[in-house]
């Protein structure tokens, strides 16, 4: 029996009486790479925070078919890379230290694995069961291309390199699902391209389900298998070809990045 990696059912989130997310419903199948687009303030981060248990919400959210108590166990197997990780700039951790924070205790890993098997999901491990923690860290750093930076302090890295380190931290815990919230906003094109190749690799080779929000429609059209479009409400969820063929849909969002994209295609 196959279940969805994520089910969001009629979810609403309010901030001080203002509705940030309004009755959103969608599902993400295992192995999908869902690109979520929407203007700033559309509620993307709020929705992610609700999925991650960091925000109160109304409605139902299921991870691999579970909600309630097993949900928190499975949550530990979700990789999350926010727009910006707010850490103390003087934090003396090296890149290796940061990535090692992602290692899950064996007990928790076993508990999560048992749940996944019982829900009938295919758990594609990134590392073999015998791989030691040190090897996992080294391998994760290799996937994101930061092997030579492992002994550097995290604060010495550029914004893009830091984001790659945080992706490595998420990978090391062998996630079933990765939630990436505009992870390369404000970094240069070269780093963005490197990041996109990492994204493609972990989705195709490691079979990790990815939910990714971005303003970069070109990257979304290249990488995503499905697209969701929201501005507090969900306006579209489906195949990416369908989304990009629908210019009325794109027009609905007056966000500058989207308009730029349309101009590019019209010219």
């Amino acid at each position, binding site marked *: 029996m196959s279940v969805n990696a994520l089910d969001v059912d009629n979810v609403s989130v309010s901030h001080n009486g203002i509705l940030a997310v309004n009755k959103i419903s969608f599902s993400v199948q295992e192995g999908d790479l869902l690109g979520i687009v929407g203007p700033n303030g559309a509620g993307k981060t709020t929705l992610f925070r609700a999925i*991650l*248990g*960091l925000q109160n919400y109304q409605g139902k959210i299921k991870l691999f078919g579970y909600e309630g108590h097993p949900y*928190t*166990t499975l*949550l*530990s197997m*979700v990789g*999350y890379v*926010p727009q910006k*990780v*707010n*850490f*103390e700039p*003087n*934090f*003396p*951790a*090296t890149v*290796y*230290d*940061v990535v090692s*924070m*992602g*290692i*899950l*205790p064996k007990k*928790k890993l076993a508990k999560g694995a048992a749940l996944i098997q019982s829900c009938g999901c295919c758990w594609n491990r990134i590392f073999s069961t015998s791989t030691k923690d040190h090897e996992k860290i080294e391998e994760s750093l290799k996937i994101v291309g930061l092997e*030579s*930076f492992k*002994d*550097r*302090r995290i604060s*010495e890295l550029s914004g893009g390199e830091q984001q790659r380190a945080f992706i490595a*931290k998420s990978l090391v*815990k062998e996630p079933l699902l990765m939630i990436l919230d505009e992870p390369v906003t404000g970094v240069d094109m070269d780093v963005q391209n490197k990041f996109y190749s990492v994204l493609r690799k972990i989705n195709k080779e490691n079979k990790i389900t990815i939910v990714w929000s971005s303003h970069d429609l070109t990257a979304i059209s290249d990488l995503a298998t499905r697209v969701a479009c929201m501005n507090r409400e969900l306006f579209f969820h489906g195949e990416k070809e369908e989304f990009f063929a629908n210019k009325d849909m794109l027009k609905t969002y007056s966000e500058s990045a989207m308009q730029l994209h349309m101009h590019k295609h019209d010219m």
Partner: protein
Amino acid sequence: MILDILSYGFMQRGLLTGIVVSITCSMMGLFLVLKRYSLFGDALSHVAFGGIALGFFLNIYPIWTAFAVSVSTALGITKLRKSTKISGDAAIAVLLSSGFAMGVLLISASHGFTIDLFSFLFGSILLTSVQDALLIVAVSCGVIVTLIAIRKPLIHFTFDEEQAKVHGIPVEKLNYLFVALAAVTVIATMRLVGILLISALIVLPNITSIMMGKGFKNTMLISISLSVSAVVAGITMSYYFNLAPSGTIVMLMVAMFVGTLVAKHFGMFSKKTLHEHNMSTVS
């Protein structure tokens, strides 16, 4: 010369408790500094003063009352901050002044200031009784063992609370344990440098080691080494030059900090970083 001072029981007790306390303080202090809770230790020490005064007032062994008052206040203020969204610095100001005011009030209501009370204010490591020494060493060892046991989730929690929560770490419970351990550490440190200088022991070795250290473990080891060296040198110097140990220890720590700051200014540590940066770029 060192053997000479070790022949005295009070020096043995002073050095033993001093070393154990300095290790505890620098370990706990690194988390407090990185979590921007540096002044929380100072506030707790003022609350501890209230607890000590309560002990004198009720005629109970004051360290017990200090433990009870500090730990319960630390837990209470954490709960209050969570439920009322009071900002951290405001909570510290309230804690600091109310703890000290309670102490002053209780002292004025009982016998006034005593030598014992002064020893808690300014430290009296060389006057530590066997009972005090045993209690301080036992409590400090308990804090060290707990910190080692919870180091991984605690480092993650200190680095980024939200990420730690998503990782499945019970951050709220961990936060309560963390502040309770901080309160216990403060009480254990009182005898060494006194209530008024505790924050120096928490902050100084750590901000110095952060400038030098590469990696969390390395930084903690540097902090412990600096702290233990300052305590041993401070106690020894205070014996030979007839100085107050607490002031000597803290001034040595200040000297270490200023020395490191000057060395960093002249590029001692940045050169190394630049070299490593070049090496990694080449590779």
